[in-house]
């Protein structure tokens, strides 16, 4: 569905007030990956890592400096209009709905822009009205919608022409827990039921963990991870933490195969690799335990470790 080979994007920036010096900033530095039909792919990276720039090149907004892209068999910057019929895009921080018009009218205008036949439009819209519960505000001007309602409107707008591929740039930014869940449910549904390939960038690791079966991580313009989430955890998050409560405060324990990270009164945190039962029995030999707990690393922690490298 998507093939990217050695993709680069450089921006020329001029700095200085009087003597304008030319600097070349490399936003995306030769990345390669492929995405198959039906995948739900997360694209992660710190601010300024090149996430949005990649998405913009995939959707035909920006022209790459080098490398090769094929999306749905088309080269985005050359076949922009043809591609636009086959992809949907939603940018969490941009508004594509008409600000002063009711939601319903925005959808009607998009129908004409995308040349969707009226009956197909009605069927598609009916479905999104149900899944995203749009009926309560379908006749409200967009400027009066809450952020959560507007994002539901934006998602509908991106999907109304039934694209095979959906790009989302931070779709859940600023949403409350309930609204986030609704967006996630929607993405899972269109991915499973309609086989829509979804690629999303996000800062919300909850999105990634609940939605994606594959993860790309980009940093400083280069891909530093391409694979599943369990593998990522194994690779970067192999260490778990054993939290123990002792009978009374004690100096950090010395146990083979574990390192004490933190001490707080009678409670100690031990970082370890390998089998939890082995470490536990060793700890039990060294001190009298009241309680213990094993903590799995969460993805947030893993990503922090990757970024910190």
């Amino acid at each position, binding site marked *: 569905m998507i093939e990217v080979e050695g993709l680069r994007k450089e921006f020329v920036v001029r700095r200085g007030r009087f003597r304008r010096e030319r600097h070349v900033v490399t936003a995306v530095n030769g990345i390669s990956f492929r995405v198959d039909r039906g995948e739900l792919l997360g694209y992660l990276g710190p601010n300024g890592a090149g996430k949005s720039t990649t998405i913009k090149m995939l959707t035909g907004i920006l022209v790459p400096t080098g490398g090769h892209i094929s999306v749905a068999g088309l080269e985005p910057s050359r076949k922009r209009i*043809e591609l636009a019929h086959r992809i949907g895009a939603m940018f969490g921080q941009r508004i594509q709905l008409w600000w002063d018009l009711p939601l319903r009218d925005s959808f009607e205008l998009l129908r004409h822009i995308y040349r969707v036949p009226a009956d197909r439009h009605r069927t598609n819209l009916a479905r999104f009205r149900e899944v995203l519960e749009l009926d309560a505000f379908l006749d409200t001007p967009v400027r009066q919608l809450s952020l959560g309602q507007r994002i539901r409107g934006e998602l509908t707008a991106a999907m109304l022409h039934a694209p095979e591929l959906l790009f989302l740039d931070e779709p859940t930014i600023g949403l409350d827990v309930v609204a986030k869940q609704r967006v996630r449910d929607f993405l899972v549904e269109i991915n499973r039921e309609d086989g829509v390939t979804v690629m999303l960038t996000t800062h919300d690791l909850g999105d990634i963990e609940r939605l994606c079966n594959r993860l790309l991580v980009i940093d400083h313009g280069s891909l530093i991870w391409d694979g599943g989430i369990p593998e990522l955890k194994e690779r970067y998050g192999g260490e778990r933490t054993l939290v123990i409560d002792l009978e009374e405060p004690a100096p950090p324990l010395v146990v083979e195969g574990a390192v004490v990270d933190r001490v707080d009164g009678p409670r100690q945190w031990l970082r370890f690799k390998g089998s939890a039962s082995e470490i536990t029995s060793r700890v039990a030999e060294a001190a009298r335990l009241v309680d213990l707990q094993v903590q799995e690393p969460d993805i947030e922690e893993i990503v922090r470790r990757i970024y910190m490298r």
Partner: protein
Amino acid sequence: MVDTVFVWRRLVGAQIRSQLQYRLSFALDAFGSFWISFIDFLVVLVIFRNVSRLNEWNVHEVAFLYALSSITFAVTDMLIGQLDQFPQKIRDGNFDILLVRPRGTLFQVIASDFALRRVARVVQGSIVLVYALSTLTIHWTVLRVLVLVVSVPSAIVIFSSIWVVGACIAFWTTDGGEFTNAFTYGGTAMAQYPFDIYATWLRRLLGFVIPLAFVCYFPALYVLGKTDPLGLPRFLEFCSPAVAAVSALVAGLTWRSAVRHYRSAGG
């Protein structure tokens, strides 16, 4: 093409509906627009209180020139005038949205910016035109009518092309609105007066490089049956449609190459 016009009508129709939602605001805008352009014409009348002729032109002839320029500019302004706010779209990255839709970007920009209130200026220009035509004695021939009728769409195309090329500057500078205004608003102000009153260098630059002389001056010479005080070849009086076609082509190509320079905005 038919489909494009149809979609344009839908998009513009939606905007007119939303603009009419705020009736009072619309009425005030339209009223203001009417008066500003009316005062503009008063300046012409004030000049002719002090002089009886501008070179070879009397007040009625200048009024005719003024009306032609004013009407065609106002129509352009109504159709695509919001293009001078286009740099904002470039700066905040909202141009992105247009690029992921299956339509030409220029078409979408134009169709998203229809300002109905500017119809007031068309009305004002038309009033001046009626006044000019009623005071002038023109020997109407079929060809004269034809030149006049064709000059209107030609002028609109020329004005639009200038505007589009000006807007393209924003792709490189992400601003430059004021620079562009010098040629759009400034251009129409120049085209309202006969070109032979301007200095030679200004005439060359604004008359031919930026082809403002073809907006009204040359067609008006023919319709009014005047000989060109500058003594330029007479065939130029018929060139407006051709100049319009070339302008549109240049504008289209400039836009295309500008879009490829689009850098979007972060976030």
